[in-house]
């Protein structure tokens, strides 16, 4: 397979095209220059995809209660459990919980099975945690879940407002395209609205660090300001919308004056006025919003408040304009298209519309059709917990880590009569609770289609054989359908047949923008060769004709009464916990943590704390902090800075029990959800911070694993050929014997130790035939030597002469310099190396840095951080 395969990246919602080439060293991953999403670019995660393909640690055979078995036995077992439950307790006693990373064809089959044949609607996905609020906001405004913006619009805008989005880290390629456009056209204004200062702020002309959850006041205030300035598109409003008066009234009631907005949002008056003036003055505005808006108990209203401003000024349906909800996952949009949510039906048809139900049932030829919405993710797990749902199929997601009140989700699965998990990996926190594990085909092994954030439909193509007994998810659902007696309706030979059926269904609904009719007749070869294309296929941009899917064809302005987050901080829980992604990890790290390179950017879970808060609490950098909310606790090392404002803390969302103890942010986040979208409030959990008293901090680099870890807290970082452990605990362990146990020196001879007893310092290293086999460094405080140099020694073959002497120093002696934490993953350039290089060569621009140090010249994901370093040193 040398010609190369064109496929699509499985990570974020940008949906970049990827070219895969096989060469002697394995697989080469390149950006696809012909793909409209990325035009050849890739971010650090995408570029490292090749490092995540190894079969080590994969689930390759079905398992029942931990025992490997064949598909027949496993599927029989699943079918029996589902069948019995449906028979005894009805269709709503079973559920599917899916992932925004499944392919459209997987989704389609699962959704068809649940809604048309089982007859319930308990099929929800982790997209519920991501952009469900935006979906409802779209439906309220447009009558249909349509994102009326394409990436090109960002590049044609005069103003891009980024609300609740760390685009630089979460959608790096799109950010880079925007940053490049801004460099080319400095007149392109960028406003970032985010309580937290993020890497995205590097290109911002204005950063509004508003009070958490106050977005609706800001956009209501903007609406009032637009009215004051006479910025309304009167004709558009009159001819194509309803509700402007009510929306304005609601806005005036909450945020009539900029002063009120400034007060509510805790922003300087001049920032508010500058934002309003900039918005009013710009002819073409894209307001891009993401999880900072969606993951809120008023997420739908926030989305509506944003959309209102665009409708009011007529800024949508034309180039360079529109409200732009960007999705977090690669195929959240595809899932929405097929109706893979408990609140949708199929193909943008509505569950609550009898005609739509009838049309779909007729199309499917199904014996029944779900007639009311199913349980949304959080409710679904609540129903699992209280026994209403008795059989649950989880595919490609890790809810024990990713749901709010994650400990309750875990308890729910423990209590559930029957849990089947289809995944690529057997060791996720969720897989541990399954009675039956089904081996799923992974990216690169399966084929199908995905739709990205700009409605661009592209093919994911297999370039690897199916390993072991792994199968694609659609096949598993078809097998379940067959065993439940619906085989005639699920006799698909391949994904093309599924897609063709989906395309036929997604055609002809009155007033709907989604229309895939043009693709219904693709033959297998044409489907296989399908080039990326946007829907509506063969039509102009959505809403260019100002026609909307509401029966009257008009868009709705929705009155928004701003609401504060569900849980307000109080004396007992005075801080606000915010959560989000880091640049080089994806979701619960099951895939990305397999790349040693990606693990180097943010190797550990952490808690961002403002330096002044930390000083008051007596917390030093790197010390463990317990973050306690009303429902649970997470523990992470403190990272001190000023990115988060005082009173706010931030923790990355990725870490699970597989990689750290007590690091699941979900455990501390109450399951408060938006009443309309059911999306949880991940960005605003009142918490209390406590310095965690431990007696020692340690790190170890080992070839093997430490199991179990005898420490109060630990984190494991998979690296190239070894694991790094960070540990902390109490008491006075007998380090010498623990070190021998963990590092397992082949001979006492090749063993070295350093002790400074009164400082509680212990260090040991094991060497075998001039190869470093492991180290253990213990101290009373987190300030131990940097791990970088030792990690390089673990990766290198033989120790260089002189290395041995300084192993326990953890750093070379007066020569060379530390790379520091990795900034550029592509070329392995670290923060310290960059600082030294910038100073030594007098570099001023990121381009110069790239020319001299290579950093940032490949994927460019690190350019914001490089810019920050440059800013910091000038």
């Amino acid at each position, binding site marked *: 397979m040398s010609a190369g395969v064109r496929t699509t990246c499985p990570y974020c919602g940008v949906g970049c095209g990827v070219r895969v080439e096989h060469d002697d060293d394995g697989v080469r991953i390149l950006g696809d220059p012909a793909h409209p999403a990325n035009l050849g670019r890739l971010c650090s995660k995408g570029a490292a995809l090749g490092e995540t393909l190894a079969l080590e640690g994969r689930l390759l055979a079905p398992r029942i209660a931990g025992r490997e078995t064949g598909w027949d036995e496993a599927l029989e077992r699943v079918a029996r459990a589902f069948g019995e439950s449906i028979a005894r307790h009805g269709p709503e006693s079973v559920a599917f919980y899916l992932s925004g990373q499944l392919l459209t064809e997987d989704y389609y089959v699962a959704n068809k099975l649940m809604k048309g044949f089982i007859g319930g609607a308990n099929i929800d996905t982790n997209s519920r945690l991501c952009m469900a609020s935006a979906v409802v906001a779209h439906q309220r405004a447009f009558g249909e879940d349509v994102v009326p913006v394409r990436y090109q619009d960002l590049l044609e805008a005069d103003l891009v407002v980024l609300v609740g989005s760390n685009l630089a880290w979460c959608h790096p390629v799109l950010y880079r395209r925007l940053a490049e456009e801004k460099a080319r056209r400095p007149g392109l204004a960028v406003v970032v609205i985010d309580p937290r200062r993020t890497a995205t702020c590097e290109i911002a002309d204005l950063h509004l660090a508003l009070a958490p959850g106050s977005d609706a006041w800001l956009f209501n205030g903007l609406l009032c300001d637009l009215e004051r300035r006479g910025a309304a598109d009167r004709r558009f409003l009159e001819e194509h919308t309803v509700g402007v008066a009510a929306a304005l009234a609601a806005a005036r009631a909450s945020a009539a004056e900029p002063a009120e907005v400034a007060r509510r949002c805790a922003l300087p008056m001049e920032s508010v006025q500058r934002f309003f003036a900039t918005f009013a003055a710009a002819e073409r505005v894209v307001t891009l919003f993401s999880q900072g808006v969606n993951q809120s108990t008023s997420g739908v209203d926030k989305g509506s408040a944003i959309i209102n401003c665009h409708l009011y000024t007529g800024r949508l349906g034309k180039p360079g304009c529109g409200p732009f909800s960007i999705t977090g996952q690669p195929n959240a949009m595809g899932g929405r298209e097929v109706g893979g949510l408990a609140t949708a039906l199929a193909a943008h048809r509505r569950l609550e519309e009898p005609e739509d139900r009838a049309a779909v049932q007729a199309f499917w030829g199904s014996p029944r059709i779900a007639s009311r919405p199913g349980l949304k993710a959080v409710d679904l797990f609540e129903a699992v917990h209280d026994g209403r749902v008795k059989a649950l199929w989880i595919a490609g997601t890790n809810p024990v880590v990713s749901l709010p009140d994650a400990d309750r989700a875990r308890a729910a699965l423990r209590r559930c009569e029957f849990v089947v998990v289809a995944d690529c990996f057997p060791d996720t926190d969720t897989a541990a609770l399954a009675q039956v594990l089904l081996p799923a085909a992974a990216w690169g092994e399966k084929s199908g289609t995905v739709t990205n954030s700009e409605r661009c439909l592209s093919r994911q193509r297999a370039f690897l054989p199916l390993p072991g007994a792994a199968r694609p998810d659609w096949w598993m659902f078809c097998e379940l359908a067959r065993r439940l007696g619906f085989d005639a309706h699920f006799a698909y030979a391949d994904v093309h047949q599924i897609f063709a059926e989906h395309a036929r269904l997604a055609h002809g609904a009155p007033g709907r923008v989604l229309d895939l009719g043009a693709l219904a007749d693709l033959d297998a070869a044409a489907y296989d060769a399908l080039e990326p294309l946007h829907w509506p296929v063969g039509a102009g941009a959505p809403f260019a004709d100002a026609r909307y899917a509401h029966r009257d064809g008009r868009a709705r302005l929705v009155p928004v009464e701003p609401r504060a987050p569900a849980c307000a901080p109080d004396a007992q829980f005075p801080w606000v916990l915010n959560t989000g992604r880091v640049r080089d990890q994806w979701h619960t790290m099951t895939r990305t943590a397999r790349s040693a390179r990606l693990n180097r950017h943010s190797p550990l879970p952490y808690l961002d704390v403002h330096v002044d808060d930390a000083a008051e609490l007596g917390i030093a950098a790197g010390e463990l902090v317990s973050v306690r909310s009303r429902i649970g606790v997470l523990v992470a090392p403190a990272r001190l800075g000023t990115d988060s404002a005082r009173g706010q803390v931030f923790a990355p969302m990725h870490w699970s029990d597989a990689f750290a103890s007590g690091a699941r942010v979900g455990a501390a986040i109450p399951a408060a959800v938006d009443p309309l979208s059911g999306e949880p409030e991940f960005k605003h959990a009142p918490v209390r911070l406590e310095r965690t008293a431990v007696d020692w901090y340690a790190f170890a680099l080992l070839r093997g694993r430490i199991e179990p870890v005898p420490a109060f807290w630990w984190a494991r970082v998979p690296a190239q050929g070894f694991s790094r452990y960070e540990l902390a605990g109490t008491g006075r362990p007998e380090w010498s014997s623990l070190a021998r146990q963990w590092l397992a020196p082949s001979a*006492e*001879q*090749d*063993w*070295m*130790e*350093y*002790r*400074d*007893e*009164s*400082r509680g*310092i212990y260090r040991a290293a094991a*060497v075998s035939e001039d190869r470093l086999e492991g180290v253990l460094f213990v101290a009373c405080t987190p300030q131990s030597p940097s791990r970088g140099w030792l990690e390089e020694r673990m990766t290198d073959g033989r120790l260089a002469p002189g290395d*041995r*002497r*300084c192993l*326990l*120093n953890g*750093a070379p*002696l*007066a*020569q*060379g*310099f530390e790379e520091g934490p990795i900034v550029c993953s592509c070329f392995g350039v670290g923060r310290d190396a960059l600082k030294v290089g910038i100073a030594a060569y007098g570099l001023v621009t990121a381009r110069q840095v790239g020319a001299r140090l290579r950093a940032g010249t490949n994927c460019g994901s690190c350019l914001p951080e490089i810019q920050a370093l440059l800013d910091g040193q000038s």
Partner: protein
Amino acid sequence: MSDRHAWQRVCRWQDILPESGVCARVGERQIAVFRAGEHVFALDNLDPCSGANVLARGIVGELRGELVVASPIYKQHFSLRSGRCLESPRHSVRAYPARVLDGSVWVRARRRLVVVGNGIAGLRVVEELLAIAPQAYDVVVFGAEPHWGYDRSLLSPVLAGETEAEAIELHPRSWYVEHGITLHAGDPVVAIDRGRRTVRSANGVTVGYDRLLLATGSHPVRLDIPGAQLPGVVSFRNLGDLGAMLDAIRPQGRAVVVGGGVLGVEAAAGLRLRGMSVTLVHRHAQLMDRHLDEEAGRLLAASLRARGIDLRLEATVDAVLGATAACGVRTSQDESLAAELVVTAIGIRPNADLARSAGLRCERGILVDDTMQSFDPAIYAVGECIQHRNTTFGMVAPLWEQGRVCAVHLAEVGVSRYVERVRPVQLKVSGLEVFSVGRIAAAQGREVLTLRDARRGVYKRLVLEQDRLVGALLVGDVQDAPWYLDLLQVGRPVTDLRSTLIFGPGATPAAAGAR
């Protein structure tokens, strides 16, 4: 080079009557200046035959073709050019360069420094003196050994065959000539006349001094047991001992070394390298017990055993066996060890007898103050023969500092005091790298840092007290010894270095900053 000891103006040319002399005071000395024809000459004014300061008043004339002055007392004639006494060369006087310039008479009057001891301590002072005040003294050196000065501290490498005997020579003969130093080698000084400021050698050479430097060294403690005087029993102290040891080396030869201190360990290792079977007998359970801790002692013992050296610890030698020559020893454990060579290394004592007999105050050694001056202001002493603030010396390191201080005071430039510092010990046998300094035992108020690397045979132990380094013990890797020594001697707080201290100066933040 000009310094204050160079030319001095004495008087105007006209002030001296033709063919006569005047007495001038130059520094603290009387010099007789004579005018003969168009020339001027300068001699000591002191007539050695009469002991009177009278030569300036003698009659200037010519005798056997040589310009002379006749003493007004006993009429001996002294050459105006050389100061030689024509009648009795033993009574010659010093002649000084003199010249006329711009109508004035100039004399260059140098004093004489007599150095007793041609070893490393004495020569160190001379070297320092040559560097800071090369014109200050005429230097005369007496050495007891018939060799040029050599570095005694390097005897061990010579024994081990790692260094040639020639290489430990401090200076070649030409160095003495070049610097106008008179050397009397193999001719020990036997008496000091402090009244007349003269010394007398075994060969009867009498030399006057302005300043006398005693650097007579030390001698080894002898075994006080039966058979200790037998041929084949040697100490390990000088080139003579070394020669005896080298002569005794035979294939399959057997040696017993008595004393497991630094010198004993070095001797044992050296003899073993020369192919001898060696047994080292040491009084205590641990080798170098004054300088090592138990673990380092164990490593050293293991290392010696690995070289094939037998150890008898917690044992002494009760007798040397043999009728006409040593053929073995009997130990306190009642074991007989065959040996043709018995090397004793059980300590040294200062050579203070010469000073003592001259009435200088001595205890174990010659008492000196912080300027290295003895109780006689004209006499200085350095090295292993001295006792300074109740300390005697057996290592080479303190000599450098003593030499520097002494030279400064001899040159009469500046002020400088000898401050006794913590002294390190270091084995000088390759492959047996051991360094120890200061207080290495654990104790209340002390903090101990240790580093072990078994395969490299490395053990490091640093002891801190009130955040200052007070002891360092290095086995197997002594590369950073100078740095630790400096930290310890300077006594600066090591708080900022603590985390990397044991990894040496290359690991310090300062070193990192200098990259």
